[in-house]
């Protein structure tokens, strides 16, 4: 356990560590959540969980900036909110001195998820410790713990822990979806706006998820690579909904069994949140570094509803965080009107799903726009 079993190849990649002790059986394509087959390393678990021993390379305050980045890179840390972008790349912007805010994304990404919440309650000192390590990389930066206001006990706990930290403050945000999306979070905490073509660093911000920051802490001050994460298992078809500390590579089936199995046969199982997660057709796939949740619903809202004509009610416009007009973009997408789609900022869609959720005519707005965006991105690559 804890042995490096795969090296990151490119610049935007990260190594993988064995999360159990045992023997590597085979390296073969295995199906993952999205339905794709991906080259996977199969380790037979000997059930002993013996680790190779973890030691920090030096006391944290003695490390140089480069050593910290190296440590994070070696530990295989990626963004654990769901996007999975390698953290060491994120923490190496072109001009580190221009970073003014390091934001800890403590706003849960989606409804139903409570994994960040558990992490904050159980290991708040590691969260603050991780943020302090990240702040060491950016001399001019101030750390902000951005927490939604529906978690008063987290706010209280973090505030008391951060009160002696001159460079860290806690900020309460309104609870709404998608508050945990990077663009919205930056706007909510600093009032700065970025669009789809910009990076947070362009407005002097770096955003990291709670779990990611805790992983940074463990990597730098304990020398532990990233091998586990917290996964929420919930939904009205799950017997005993709860959060689990899960070793990367564990099968989703095991998670369901641990949660008491299904109380009723679910119609739909989702990997991730209800707004942006994937619909699953098989439970026998592994948890990865970016798996946030497993949701099992007794009824599927989507297939039970038929879509009807748009009545132009404007609800999609009101909820769209990208401030675009989903109903029109969806129309352009359905008719493959590329130019109109691009001219009306179709590429600014963040695929949060709010428009499809709110639509009284139950039109697949997000889905249409998403497909068109994929087409446009593919065209750009050519």
């Amino acid at each position, binding site marked *: 356990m804890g042995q490096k079993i795969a090296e990151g190849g490119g610049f935007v990649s990260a190594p993988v560590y064995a999360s159990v002790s045992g023997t590597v059986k085979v390296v073969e394509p295995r199906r993952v959540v999205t339905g794709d087959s991906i080259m996977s390393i199969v380790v037979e678990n000997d059930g002993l969980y013996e680790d190779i021993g973890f030691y920090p390379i030096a006391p944290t305050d003695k490390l140089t900036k480069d050593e910290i980045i190296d440590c994070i890179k070696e530990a295989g840390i990626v963004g654990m909110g769901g996007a999975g972008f390698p953290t060491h790349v994120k923490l190496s912007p072109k001009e580190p001195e221009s970073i003014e805010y390091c934001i800890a994304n403590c706003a849960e990404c989606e409804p139903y998820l409570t994994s960040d919440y558990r992490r904050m309650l159980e290991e708040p000192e590691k969260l603050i410790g991780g943020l302090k390590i990240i702040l060491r990389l950016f001399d001019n930066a101030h750390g902000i713990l951005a927490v939604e206001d529906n978690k008063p006990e987290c706010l209280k706990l973090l505030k008391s822990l951060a009160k002696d930290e001159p460079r860290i403050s806690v900020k309460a945000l309104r609870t709404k979806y998608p508050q945990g999306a990077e*663009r919205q979070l930056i706007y909510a905490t600093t009032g700065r706006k970025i*669009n789809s073509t910009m990076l947070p660093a362009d407005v002097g911000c770096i955003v990291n998820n709670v779990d990611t920051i805790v992983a940074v802490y463990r990597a730098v001050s304990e020398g532990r690579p990233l091998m586990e994460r917290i996964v929420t298992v919930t939904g009205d078809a799950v017997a005993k909904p709860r959060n689990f500390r899960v070793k990367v590579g564990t099968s989703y089936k095991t998670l369901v069994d641990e949660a008491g199995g299904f109380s009723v046969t679910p119609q739909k199982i989702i990997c991730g949140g209800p707004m942006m997660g994937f*619909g699953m057709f098989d439970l026998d796939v592994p948890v990865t570094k970016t798996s946030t949740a497993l949701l099992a619903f007794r009824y*599927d*809202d989507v297939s039970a509803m038929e879509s009807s*004509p748009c009545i132009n009610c404007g609800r999609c*416009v009101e909820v769209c965080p990208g401030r*675009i007009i989903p109903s029109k973009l969806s129309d352009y997408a359905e008719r493959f009107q590329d130019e109109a789609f691009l001219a009306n900022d179709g590429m600014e869609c963040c695929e949060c799903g709010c428009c499809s959720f709110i639509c009284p005519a139950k039109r697949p707005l997000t*889905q249409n726009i998403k497909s068109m965006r994929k087409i446009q991105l593919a065209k750009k690559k050519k």
Partner: protein
Amino acid sequence: MSELLKVSSNPHIRSKVTTNGIMMTVVLALLPMAGFGIYQFRTDALVLILCSVGTAVLTEFLFGLYTKKQTISDLSAVVTGLLLALNLPPGAPWWVAVLGSLFAILVVKLLFGGLGQNFMNPALAARCFLLISFPAIMTDFTYDAFTGATPLAALKAGEEVNVLDMVIGRTTGTIGETSMIAIVIGACILLLTGVIDLRIPGSYLISFLLFVILFGGHGMNPAYLSAQLAGGGLMLGAFFMATDYVTRPITVKGQYIYGIFLGIMTGIFRIFGSAAEGVSYAIILGNLLVPLIEKITKPKAFGKGGRR
């Protein structure tokens, strides 16, 4: 796992709001007016309402048989039929309601592509159609106890009107427009259930009021102003017809512009026009400008336009 799971693209949850539910709420909100109309004008109002709603639903049903696509269950035909009836004078013969309703549903709505595709409010377009075709019937508001002119016509002729009567509904007018109390109850239902917001009614009424203060010739005279507000189809139009989803701008800024435009147009029609009333024409004209308004008020995408 033996049972098959359903798989679809995200998002996987949907709100409980449906088109059907919205239409149902609108019908509910129109009922106080219909009820007061029936109380005031008895069977004449009831016959007109039934003819109008019945024709609307039947037309849509028959058209559905022809296109093999049934749409009456979305209740939008009921809303259109009811709205049209509320806009008819109580003394109108039954066939006027049938003809108007047929025109609204078949010509204005279905021939343009059905729900969501009509560029004019069907009920109002039909009212204007009837107003042009049968001006004598459509402007004759003489009814039993209520002889003489509508409050607005009286106001235009320079006579005194009783504002309290207008609030309660002891005046003559179309079936749905007489009682302010009934209209306000209906408007509150729509506002509280979130079906409409105050953007369009608010900007409409305020801009109209300002216009009347400036050009009405009575300055800030409260009796005159409240009579203008409560008279005719203004309240009915502002809350129930200008807010029609399909024919108002979808952009937030556009909705304010649209409301202000309606206010000014109504003011012009009422004060400088030959007829006492102008709400229907103002809204129809506004409907035609919607594509243009949406074009100039396209919202700026989040974060667009560079740094900070």
